[in-house]
Protein backbone atom coordinates (compact mmCIF):
# COMPACT_ATOMS: atom_id res chain seq x y z
CA UNK A 1 0.00 0.00 0.00
CA UNK A 2 2.86 2.38 0.72
CA UNK A 3 3.82 2.25 -2.96
CA UNK A 4 0.55 3.88 -3.96
CA UNK A 5 0.31 6.17 -1.01
CA UNK A 6 -2.02 9.03 -1.71
CA UNK A 7 -1.23 12.58 -0.60
CA UNK A 8 -4.11 12.23 1.85
CA UNK A 9 -2.28 9.44 3.62
CA UNK A 10 0.92 11.47 3.55
CA UNK A 11 -0.88 14.27 5.33
CA UNK A 12 -2.27 11.79 7.82
CA UNK A 13 1.17 10.46 8.50
CA UNK A 14 2.58 13.86 9.32
CA UNK A 15 -0.39 14.69 11.54
CA UNK A 16 -0.19 11.48 13.51
CA UNK A 17 3.58 11.86 13.76
CA UNK A 18 3.03 15.25 15.32
CA UNK A 19 0.92 13.65 18.04
CA UNK A 20 3.45 10.85 18.53
CA UNK A 21 6.45 13.16 18.51
CA UNK A 22 4.91 15.37 21.13
CA UNK A 23 4.10 12.39 23.26
CA UNK A 24 7.66 11.13 22.80
CA UNK A 25 9.19 14.41 23.88
CA UNK A 26 7.04 14.72 26.94
CA UNK A 27 8.53 11.83 28.81
CA UNK A 28 7.46 12.83 32.28
CA UNK A 29 3.76 13.24 31.53
CA UNK A 30 3.82 10.00 29.53
CA UNK A 31 5.20 8.07 32.47
CA UNK A 32 2.70 9.71 34.78
CA UNK A 33 -0.10 8.31 32.58
CA UNK A 34 1.18 4.77 32.96
CA UNK A 35 -0.71 4.13 36.18
CA UNK A 36 -4.04 5.31 34.78
CA UNK A 37 -6.45 2.74 33.36
CA UNK A 38 -7.73 3.40 29.81
CA UNK A 39 -11.04 4.81 30.96
CA UNK A 40 -9.43 7.31 33.31
CA UNK A 41 -6.84 8.39 30.78
CA UNK A 42 -9.60 8.83 28.23
CA UNK A 43 -11.56 10.95 30.70
CA UNK A 44 -8.43 13.02 31.20
CA UNK A 45 -8.20 13.55 27.43
CA UNK A 46 -11.81 14.69 27.27
CA UNK A 47 -11.56 17.03 30.24
CA UNK A 48 -8.28 18.50 28.99
CA UNK A 49 -9.86 19.22 25.61
CA UNK A 50 -13.01 20.57 27.21
CA UNK A 51 -10.84 23.03 29.15
CA UNK A 52 -9.31 24.17 25.86
CA UNK A 53 -5.87 22.78 26.69
CA UNK A 54 -3.57 20.69 24.52
CA UNK A 55 -4.41 17.00 25.03
CA UNK A 56 -1.98 15.60 22.46
CA UNK A 57 0.37 14.09 25.02
CA UNK A 58 -2.41 12.19 26.75
CA UNK A 59 -3.90 11.13 23.40
CA UNK A 60 -0.50 9.92 22.27
CA UNK A 61 -0.11 7.86 25.43
CA UNK A 62 -3.61 6.42 25.12
CA UNK A 63 -3.35 5.48 21.45
CA UNK A 64 0.09 3.99 21.98
CA UNK A 65 -1.51 1.40 24.28
CA UNK A 66 -3.78 0.37 21.41
CA UNK A 67 -1.09 0.16 18.74
CA UNK A 68 -0.67 -3.61 18.97
CA UNK A 69 -4.37 -4.51 18.93
CA UNK A 70 -4.72 -2.05 16.04
CA UNK A 71 -2.08 -4.04 14.18
CA UNK A 72 -4.07 -7.24 14.77
CA UNK A 73 -7.18 -5.60 13.32
CA UNK A 74 -5.26 -4.37 10.27
CA UNK A 75 -3.84 -7.86 9.65
CA UNK A 76 -7.29 -9.38 9.82
CA UNK A 77 -8.60 -6.86 7.31
CA UNK A 78 -5.58 -7.62 5.13
CA UNK A 79 -6.52 -11.30 5.32
CA UNK A 80 -10.03 -10.46 4.12
CA UNK A 81 -8.58 -8.52 1.20
CA UNK A 82 -5.67 -10.96 0.66
CA UNK A 83 -3.36 -7.99 0.30
CA UNK A 84 -1.28 -5.51 2.27
CA UNK A 85 2.16 -5.34 3.83
CA UNK A 86 3.48 -4.96 7.39
CA UNK A 87 4.30 -1.33 6.56
CA UNK A 88 0.58 -0.62 6.26
CA UNK A 89 0.02 -1.21 9.96
CA UNK A 90 1.88 1.92 11.03
CA UNK A 91 0.31 4.02 8.34
CA UNK A 92 -3.23 2.87 9.10
CA UNK A 93 -2.65 3.26 12.82
CA UNK A 94 -1.63 6.86 12.23
CA UNK A 95 -4.61 7.44 9.97
CA UNK A 96 -6.86 6.08 12.71
CA UNK A 97 -5.24 8.35 15.31
CA UNK A 98 -5.94 11.31 13.06
CA UNK A 99 -9.60 10.34 12.67
CA UNK A 100 -9.89 9.63 16.38
CA UNK A 101 -8.57 13.10 17.24
CA UNK A 102 -10.37 15.04 14.51
CA UNK A 103 -13.79 13.44 14.72
CA UNK A 104 -13.88 10.41 16.99
CA UNK A 105 -13.38 12.20 20.30
CA UNK A 106 -16.42 14.36 19.65
CA UNK A 107 -18.47 11.43 18.37
CA UNK A 108 -17.74 9.04 21.22
CA UNK A 109 -20.87 8.81 23.31
CA UNK A 110 -19.79 6.22 25.86
CA UNK A 111 -22.70 3.93 25.06
CA UNK A 112 -22.32 0.73 23.08
CA UNK A 113 -24.19 0.84 19.77
CA UNK A 114 -23.84 -2.89 19.27
CA UNK A 115 -24.96 -3.78 22.78
CA UNK A 116 -27.49 -1.12 23.83
CA UNK A 117 -27.47 -0.42 27.53
CA UNK A 118 -23.83 -1.39 27.92
CA UNK A 119 -20.92 0.98 28.23
CA UNK A 120 -18.65 1.26 25.18
CA UNK A 121 -14.93 1.19 25.68
CA UNK A 122 -12.80 3.89 24.07
CA UNK A 123 -10.46 1.13 22.94
CA UNK A 124 -13.21 -0.66 21.03
CA UNK A 125 -14.26 2.66 19.56
CA UNK A 126 -10.69 3.31 18.41
CA UNK A 127 -10.28 -0.17 16.97
CA UNK A 128 -13.44 0.34 14.93
CA UNK A 129 -11.88 3.44 13.49
CA UNK A 130 -8.78 1.39 12.66
CA UNK A 131 -10.92 -1.28 11.06
CA UNK A 132 -12.81 1.13 8.83
CA UNK A 133 -9.67 3.09 7.99
CA UNK A 134 -8.16 -0.18 6.77
CA UNK A 135 -11.25 -1.14 4.76
CA UNK A 136 -11.40 2.34 3.23
CA UNK A 137 -7.72 2.22 2.37
CA UNK A 138 -7.85 -1.20 0.70
CA UNK A 139 -11.00 -0.24 -1.22
CA UNK A 140 -9.23 2.90 -2.44
CA UNK A 141 -6.12 0.93 -3.26
CA UNK A 142 -8.22 -1.42 -5.32
CA UNK A 143 -9.70 1.57 -7.17
CA UNK A 144 -6.20 2.92 -7.78
CA UNK A 145 -4.90 -0.37 -9.06
CA UNK A 146 -7.89 -0.85 -11.28
CA UNK A 147 -7.65 2.68 -12.63
CA UNK A 148 -6.41 2.55 -16.23
CA UNK A 149 -4.50 5.83 -15.83
CA UNK A 150 -2.12 4.42 -13.26
CA UNK A 151 0.04 2.78 -15.91
CA UNK A 152 3.71 2.07 -15.28
CA UNK A 153 4.27 4.68 -12.62
CA UNK A 154 2.69 2.60 -9.95
CA UNK A 155 5.81 2.48 -7.81
CA UNK A 156 6.84 6.10 -7.96
CA UNK A 157 5.26 9.28 -6.77
CA UNK A 158 5.81 11.52 -9.75
CA UNK A 159 4.04 14.88 -9.81
CA UNK A 160 1.68 13.38 -12.35
CA UNK A 161 0.84 10.48 -10.08
CA UNK A 162 0.48 12.66 -7.01
CA UNK A 163 -1.86 14.94 -8.93
CA UNK A 164 -3.78 11.94 -10.12
CA UNK A 165 -3.96 10.54 -6.59
CA UNK A 166 -5.23 13.90 -5.35
CA UNK A 167 -7.88 13.76 -8.04
CA UNK A 168 -8.85 10.25 -7.06
CA UNK A 169 -8.96 11.11 -3.37
CA UNK A 170 -11.13 14.12 -4.12
CA UNK A 171 -13.36 12.06 -6.37
CA UNK A 172 -13.65 9.45 -3.64
CA UNK A 173 -14.60 12.08 -1.08
CA UNK A 174 -17.19 13.51 -3.44
CA UNK A 175 -18.53 10.04 -4.15
CA UNK A 176 -18.79 9.29 -0.43
CA UNK A 177 -20.41 12.66 0.21
CA UNK A 178 -22.87 12.02 -2.60
CA UNK A 179 -23.67 8.56 -1.26
CA UNK A 180 -24.32 9.95 2.23
CA UNK A 181 -26.55 12.61 0.71
CA UNK A 182 -28.41 10.04 -1.35
CA UNK A 183 -29.17 7.79 1.61
CA UNK A 184 -30.30 10.73 3.71
CA UNK A 185 -32.65 11.78 0.90
CA UNK A 186 -33.90 8.23 0.50
CA UNK A 187 -34.54 7.90 4.25
CA UNK A 188 -36.69 11.03 4.02
CA UNK A 189 -38.52 9.59 1.03
CA UNK A 190 -39.27 6.45 3.05
CA UNK A 191 -40.65 8.54 5.89
CA UNK A 192 -42.73 10.93 3.82
CA UNK A 193 -43.68 8.85 0.77
CA UNK A 194 -43.32 5.14 1.63
CA UNK A 195 -45.12 3.83 -1.48
CA UNK A 196 -42.89 5.82 -3.78
CA UNK A 197 -39.84 4.72 -1.81
CA UNK A 198 -40.78 1.05 -2.22
CA UNK A 199 -41.17 1.47 -5.97
CA UNK A 200 -37.87 3.32 -6.26
CA UNK A 201 -36.14 0.66 -4.22
CA UNK A 202 -37.48 -2.14 -6.39
CA UNK A 203 -36.65 -0.31 -9.59
CA UNK A 204 -33.21 1.04 -8.73
CA UNK A 205 -31.79 -0.62 -5.61
CA UNK A 206 -32.84 -4.14 -6.56
CA UNK A 207 -32.09 -3.48 -10.24
CA UNK A 208 -35.47 -4.55 -11.58
CA UNK A 209 -35.36 -1.55 -13.90
CA UNK A 210 -38.51 -2.67 -15.64
CA UNK A 211 -41.97 -1.52 -14.70
CA UNK A 212 -43.59 -4.89 -15.38
CA UNK A 213 -41.15 -6.61 -13.03
CA UNK A 214 -41.46 -3.78 -10.55
CA UNK A 215 -45.26 -3.94 -10.61
CA UNK A 216 -45.16 -7.68 -10.09
CA UNK A 217 -42.70 -7.34 -7.22
CA UNK A 218 -44.90 -4.76 -5.49
CA UNK A 219 -48.27 -6.23 -6.45
CA UNK A 220 -49.41 -3.06 -8.21
CA UNK A 221 -50.31 -2.13 -11.77
CA UNK A 222 -47.65 -1.22 -14.32
CA UNK A 223 -49.13 2.27 -14.59
CA UNK A 224 -48.88 2.64 -10.85
CA UNK A 225 -45.28 1.47 -10.87
CA UNK A 226 -44.42 4.07 -13.49
CA UNK A 227 -46.22 6.76 -11.54
CA UNK A 228 -44.63 5.89 -8.22
CA UNK A 229 -41.12 5.77 -9.62
CA UNK A 230 -41.65 9.13 -11.37
CA UNK A 231 -42.97 10.68 -8.18
CA UNK A 232 -40.12 9.16 -6.18
CA UNK A 233 -37.62 10.68 -8.59
CA UNK A 234 -39.08 14.18 -8.24
CA UNK A 235 -39.22 13.97 -4.46
CA UNK A 236 -35.72 12.54 -4.21
CA UNK A 237 -34.37 15.32 -6.38
CA UNK A 238 -36.10 17.92 -4.24
CA UNK A 239 -34.73 16.34 -1.06
CA UNK A 240 -31.22 16.18 -2.52
CA UNK A 241 -31.39 19.89 -3.33
CA UNK A 242 -32.61 20.75 0.16
CA UNK A 243 -30.13 18.49 1.96
CA UNK A 244 -27.23 19.68 -0.14
CA UNK A 245 -28.14 23.29 0.58
CA UNK A 246 -28.37 22.55 4.30
CA UNK A 247 -25.01 20.80 4.16
CA UNK A 248 -23.41 23.81 2.48
CA UNK A 249 -24.82 26.28 4.97
Amino acid sequence: MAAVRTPMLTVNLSYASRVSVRSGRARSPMSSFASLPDAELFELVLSTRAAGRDANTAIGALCERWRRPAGVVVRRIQASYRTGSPDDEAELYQEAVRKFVEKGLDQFRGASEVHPGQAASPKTFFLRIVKHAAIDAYRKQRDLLEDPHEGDEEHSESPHQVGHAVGLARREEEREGAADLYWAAFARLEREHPNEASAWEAYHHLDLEDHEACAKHLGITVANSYKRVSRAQAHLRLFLMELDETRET
Partner: protein
Amino acid sequence: MSGPDPANVRFDQHHADLRAAAGTSIVDPERAGVVLTMAGDLLRRSACRASGSDEASKEIEPALAAVGREAALAYVASLDAKRLRATLLGAFEDAFEAMLADTKEERSLFADGALLALSTRDHLASVRAALVWSEVDPAALDEKLRIIDEGLAARARMLAVLNPRRRDELSLLDADARGEAFWFGDRAGCDALLAIYTNRPLNKGDEAHLASCEACQRDAKSVGYAVRPAHVSAMILRRIEDGAATATELRFVEHHAKGCKACAVAVEAVRAVDVD
Protein backbone atom coordinates in the same frame (compact mmCIF):
# COMPACT_ATOMS: atom_id res chain seq x y z
CA MET B 1 -62.11 39.91 -26.70
CA SER B 2 -60.56 41.96 -23.93
CA GLY B 3 -62.40 42.14 -20.62
CA PRO B 4 -61.78 44.08 -17.46
CA ASP B 5 -58.34 43.74 -15.89
CA PRO B 6 -58.75 40.76 -13.50
CA ALA B 7 -56.54 42.45 -10.92
CA ASN B 8 -58.79 45.49 -10.83
CA VAL B 9 -61.90 43.34 -10.67
CA ARG B 10 -60.39 41.48 -7.74
CA PHE B 11 -59.83 44.72 -5.82
CA ASP B 12 -63.26 46.26 -6.63
CA GLN B 13 -64.66 44.76 -3.47
CA HIS B 14 -61.77 46.24 -1.50
CA HIS B 15 -62.67 49.73 -2.67
CA ALA B 16 -66.32 49.31 -1.74
CA ASP B 17 -65.58 47.76 1.65
CA LEU B 18 -63.01 50.40 2.56
CA ARG B 19 -65.46 53.17 1.68
CA ALA B 20 -68.07 51.46 3.86
CA ALA B 21 -65.64 51.22 6.77
CA ALA B 22 -64.73 54.90 6.68
CA GLY B 23 -66.45 56.91 9.38
CA THR B 24 -67.37 53.89 11.50
CA SER B 25 -65.78 52.63 14.71
CA ILE B 26 -64.39 49.14 14.39
CA VAL B 27 -63.84 47.37 17.70
CA ASP B 28 -64.34 43.77 16.63
CA PRO B 29 -60.86 42.19 16.12
CA GLU B 30 -62.01 40.02 13.22
CA ARG B 31 -63.54 42.93 11.37
CA ALA B 32 -60.41 44.94 12.14
CA GLY B 33 -58.35 42.20 10.51
CA VAL B 34 -60.46 42.35 7.35
CA VAL B 35 -60.10 46.11 7.02
CA LEU B 36 -56.37 46.04 7.83
CA THR B 37 -55.86 43.37 5.18
CA MET B 38 -57.78 45.22 2.48
CA ALA B 39 -56.12 48.52 3.27
CA GLY B 40 -52.70 46.88 3.33
CA ASP B 41 -53.38 45.08 0.05
CA LEU B 42 -53.88 48.46 -1.59
CA LEU B 43 -51.05 50.16 0.29
CA ARG B 44 -48.72 47.58 -1.24
CA ARG B 45 -50.28 47.82 -4.70
CA SER B 46 -50.50 51.42 -5.74
CA ALA B 47 -51.55 50.44 -9.28
CA CYS B 48 -54.67 48.75 -7.91
CA ARG B 49 -55.98 51.71 -5.94
CA ALA B 50 -59.23 53.28 -7.11
CA SER B 51 -57.72 56.41 -8.58
CA GLY B 52 -54.04 55.67 -8.78
CA SER B 53 -51.31 56.01 -6.22
CA ASP B 54 -52.00 59.65 -5.32
CA GLU B 55 -55.39 58.76 -3.96
CA ALA B 56 -54.04 56.42 -1.30
CA SER B 57 -54.88 58.64 1.58
CA LYS B 58 -58.43 59.38 0.40
CA GLU B 59 -59.30 55.73 0.09
CA ILE B 60 -57.27 54.07 2.78
CA GLU B 61 -56.74 56.53 5.59
CA PRO B 62 -60.40 57.00 6.56
CA ALA B 63 -60.89 53.22 6.67
CA LEU B 64 -57.81 52.69 8.82
CA ALA B 65 -58.83 55.56 11.09
CA ALA B 66 -61.99 53.59 11.83
CA VAL B 67 -59.98 50.65 13.17
CA GLY B 68 -59.36 51.04 16.86
CA ARG B 69 -55.79 50.43 18.02
CA GLU B 70 -56.92 47.85 20.56
CA ALA B 71 -58.98 46.01 17.95
CA ALA B 72 -55.96 45.92 15.64
CA LEU B 73 -53.70 44.52 18.36
CA ALA B 74 -56.38 42.04 19.43
CA TYR B 75 -56.57 40.82 15.85
CA VAL B 76 -52.82 40.28 15.79
CA ALA B 77 -53.02 38.46 19.11
CA SER B 78 -55.70 36.16 17.71
CA LEU B 79 -53.48 34.91 14.90
CA ASP B 80 -52.37 31.31 15.40
CA ALA B 81 -48.80 31.27 14.08
CA LYS B 82 -48.45 27.49 14.16
CA ARG B 83 -51.67 26.94 12.24
CA LEU B 84 -50.73 29.59 9.70
CA ARG B 85 -47.33 28.00 9.26
CA ALA B 86 -48.99 24.64 8.65
CA THR B 87 -51.21 26.28 6.03
CA LEU B 88 -48.22 27.77 4.30
CA LEU B 89 -46.29 24.49 4.43
CA GLY B 90 -49.36 22.86 2.90
CA ALA B 91 -49.17 25.37 0.05
CA PHE B 92 -45.62 24.28 -0.71
CA GLU B 93 -46.60 20.60 -0.65
CA ASP B 94 -49.67 21.23 -2.79
CA ALA B 95 -47.66 23.15 -5.35
CA PHE B 96 -45.27 20.21 -5.65
CA GLU B 97 -48.20 17.82 -5.96
CA ALA B 98 -49.66 20.01 -8.71
CA MET B 99 -46.47 19.43 -10.68
CA LEU B 100 -46.86 15.66 -10.30
CA ALA B 101 -50.62 15.54 -10.91
CA ASP B 102 -51.93 13.17 -13.58
CA THR B 103 -54.83 15.26 -14.84
CA LYS B 104 -55.48 18.88 -15.61
CA GLU B 105 -58.28 18.98 -13.05
CA GLU B 106 -56.11 17.53 -10.34
CA ARG B 107 -53.32 19.96 -11.22
CA SER B 108 -55.72 22.93 -11.03
CA LEU B 109 -57.09 21.78 -7.72
CA PHE B 110 -53.67 21.54 -6.11
CA ALA B 111 -52.40 24.74 -7.75
CA ASP B 112 -55.46 26.79 -6.77
CA GLY B 113 -55.27 25.54 -3.21
CA ALA B 114 -51.59 26.36 -3.01
CA LEU B 115 -52.05 29.85 -4.39
CA LEU B 116 -54.88 30.52 -1.97
CA ALA B 117 -52.63 29.55 0.93
CA LEU B 118 -49.83 31.77 -0.38
CA SER B 119 -52.35 34.60 -0.49
CA THR B 120 -52.98 34.04 3.21
CA ARG B 121 -49.33 34.85 3.83
CA ASP B 122 -49.59 37.85 1.55
CA HIS B 123 -52.56 39.11 3.57
CA LEU B 124 -50.40 39.06 6.68
CA ALA B 125 -47.86 41.27 4.90
CA SER B 126 -50.76 43.60 4.11
CA VAL B 127 -51.85 43.66 7.74
CA ARG B 128 -48.33 44.64 8.69
CA ALA B 129 -48.25 47.43 6.10
CA ALA B 130 -51.56 48.75 7.45
CA LEU B 131 -50.31 48.65 11.04
CA VAL B 132 -47.20 50.61 10.07
CA TRP B 133 -49.35 53.13 8.15
CA SER B 134 -51.52 53.52 11.26
CA GLU B 135 -48.44 53.89 13.45
CA VAL B 136 -49.28 50.77 15.45
CA ASP B 137 -46.21 48.82 16.61
CA PRO B 138 -45.98 45.67 14.44
CA ALA B 139 -43.58 43.86 16.83
CA ALA B 140 -46.14 41.26 17.95
CA LEU B 141 -46.99 40.46 14.35
CA ASP B 142 -43.32 40.33 13.40
CA GLU B 143 -42.71 37.70 16.05
CA LYS B 144 -45.51 35.57 14.62
CA LEU B 145 -44.27 36.07 11.09
CA ARG B 146 -40.86 34.86 12.21
CA ILE B 147 -42.44 31.60 13.37
CA ILE B 148 -44.60 31.28 10.27
CA ASP B 149 -41.80 31.93 7.79
CA GLU B 150 -38.91 30.10 9.38
CA GLY B 151 -36.95 28.28 6.67
CA LEU B 152 -39.71 28.58 4.08
CA ALA B 153 -38.01 31.02 1.71
CA ALA B 154 -35.33 28.39 1.16
CA ARG B 155 -38.05 25.98 0.02
CA ALA B 156 -39.45 28.29 -2.64
CA ARG B 157 -38.10 25.91 -5.28
CA MET B 158 -41.15 23.77 -4.50
CA LEU B 159 -43.44 26.46 -5.92
CA ALA B 160 -42.05 26.31 -9.46
CA VAL B 161 -45.27 25.03 -10.99
CA LEU B 162 -47.04 28.19 -9.81
CA ASN B 163 -44.42 30.50 -11.28
CA PRO B 164 -46.52 32.15 -14.03
CA ARG B 165 -49.22 33.02 -11.49
CA ARG B 166 -46.68 34.04 -8.87
CA ARG B 167 -45.05 36.38 -11.36
CA ASP B 168 -48.46 37.92 -12.09
CA GLU B 169 -49.01 38.48 -8.39
CA LEU B 170 -45.52 39.86 -7.94
CA SER B 171 -46.00 42.34 -10.77
CA LEU B 172 -48.97 43.88 -8.93
CA LEU B 173 -46.88 44.64 -5.85
CA ASP B 174 -44.99 47.90 -5.46
CA ALA B 175 -41.23 47.57 -5.78
CA ASP B 176 -40.53 47.84 -2.05
CA ALA B 177 -43.09 45.14 -1.24
CA ARG B 178 -41.66 42.68 -3.73
CA GLY B 179 -38.40 42.09 -1.89
CA GLU B 180 -40.02 40.60 1.20
CA ALA B 181 -42.69 38.62 -0.67
CA PHE B 182 -40.75 35.36 -0.99
CA TRP B 183 -44.05 33.50 -1.39
CA PHE B 184 -44.54 35.21 -4.74
CA GLY B 185 -41.01 36.24 -5.66
CA ASP B 186 -38.34 33.71 -4.64
CA ARG B 187 -37.37 31.40 -7.50
CA ALA B 188 -40.34 32.79 -9.47
CA GLY B 189 -38.23 32.85 -12.62
CA CYS B 190 -36.90 29.33 -12.15
CA ASP B 191 -39.26 27.41 -14.43
CA ALA B 192 -36.31 25.18 -15.37
CA LEU B 193 -36.81 23.45 -12.02
CA LEU B 194 -39.80 21.62 -13.46
CA ALA B 195 -37.58 19.91 -16.01
CA ILE B 196 -34.94 19.21 -13.37
CA TYR B 197 -37.39 17.55 -10.97
CA THR B 198 -38.95 15.38 -13.64
CA ASN B 199 -35.75 14.71 -15.58
CA ARG B 200 -37.30 16.15 -18.74
CA PRO B 201 -34.97 17.64 -21.36
CA LEU B 202 -34.49 21.37 -20.88
CA ASN B 203 -36.13 23.58 -23.49
CA LYS B 204 -34.30 26.60 -24.89
CA GLY B 205 -35.81 28.93 -22.29
CA ASP B 206 -34.75 26.61 -19.49
CA GLU B 207 -31.23 26.39 -20.90
CA ALA B 208 -30.93 30.16 -21.12
CA HIS B 209 -32.19 30.52 -17.56
CA LEU B 210 -29.88 27.83 -16.23
CA ALA B 211 -26.90 29.53 -17.84
CA SER B 212 -27.45 32.64 -15.72
CA CYS B 213 -29.21 31.43 -12.54
CA GLU B 214 -26.78 30.34 -9.80
CA ALA B 215 -29.56 28.87 -7.66
CA CYS B 216 -30.70 26.59 -10.48
CA GLN B 217 -27.11 25.66 -11.29
CA ARG B 218 -26.62 24.63 -7.66
CA ASP B 219 -29.84 22.63 -7.67
CA ALA B 220 -28.96 20.90 -10.92
CA LYS B 221 -25.59 19.98 -9.40
CA SER B 222 -27.27 18.60 -6.28
CA VAL B 223 -29.50 16.21 -8.22
CA GLY B 224 -26.51 15.13 -10.26
CA TYR B 225 -24.72 13.90 -7.16
CA ALA B 226 -26.65 10.70 -6.89
CA VAL B 227 -29.81 9.37 -8.39
CA ARG B 228 -29.21 5.83 -7.21
CA PRO B 229 -26.58 4.16 -5.03
CA ALA B 230 -23.63 3.01 -7.12
CA HIS B 231 -21.82 1.01 -4.42
CA VAL B 232 -21.94 0.25 -0.71
CA SER B 233 -20.60 3.46 0.80
CA ALA B 234 -18.23 3.76 3.76
CA MET B 235 -21.11 5.28 5.73
CA ILE B 236 -23.26 2.19 5.14
CA LEU B 237 -20.38 -0.05 6.20
CA ARG B 238 -20.08 1.87 9.46
CA ARG B 239 -23.83 1.67 9.94
CA ILE B 240 -23.69 -2.11 9.48
CA GLU B 241 -20.90 -2.25 12.06
CA ASP B 242 -22.96 -0.18 14.50
CA GLY B 243 -26.11 -2.20 13.88
CA ALA B 244 -27.73 1.00 12.65
CA ALA B 245 -28.26 0.12 8.99
CA THR B 246 -31.92 0.27 7.97
CA ALA B 247 -33.74 -2.67 6.42
CA THR B 248 -33.68 -0.86 3.07
CA GLU B 249 -29.96 -0.28 3.29
CA LEU B 250 -29.35 -3.93 4.17
CA ARG B 251 -31.53 -5.12 1.26
CA PHE B 252 -29.49 -2.95 -1.08
CA VAL B 253 -26.23 -4.23 0.40
CA GLU B 254 -27.24 -7.88 0.07
CA HIS B 255 -28.46 -7.41 -3.48
CA HIS B 256 -25.55 -5.25 -4.63
CA ALA B 257 -22.87 -7.43 -3.06
CA LYS B 258 -24.04 -10.39 -5.16
CA GLY B 259 -22.86 -8.61 -8.29
CA CYS B 260 -19.99 -6.47 -6.96
CA LYS B 261 -16.97 -8.31 -5.64
CA ALA B 262 -15.32 -5.20 -4.21
CA CYS B 263 -18.33 -4.37 -2.08
CA ALA B 264 -18.84 -8.01 -1.13
CA VAL B 265 -15.29 -8.16 0.27
CA ALA B 266 -15.80 -4.92 2.20
CA VAL B 267 -19.08 -6.11 3.72
CA GLU B 268 -17.52 -9.46 4.57
CA ALA B 269 -14.60 -7.69 6.25
CA VAL B 270 -16.95 -5.58 8.34
CA ARG B 271 -18.85 -8.64 9.48
CA ALA B 272 -15.91 -11.01 9.93
CA VAL B 273 -13.54 -8.78 11.89
CA ASP B 274 -14.95 -8.24 15.35
CA VAL B 275 -13.20 -5.66 17.51
CA ASP B 276 -15.47 -5.91 20.56
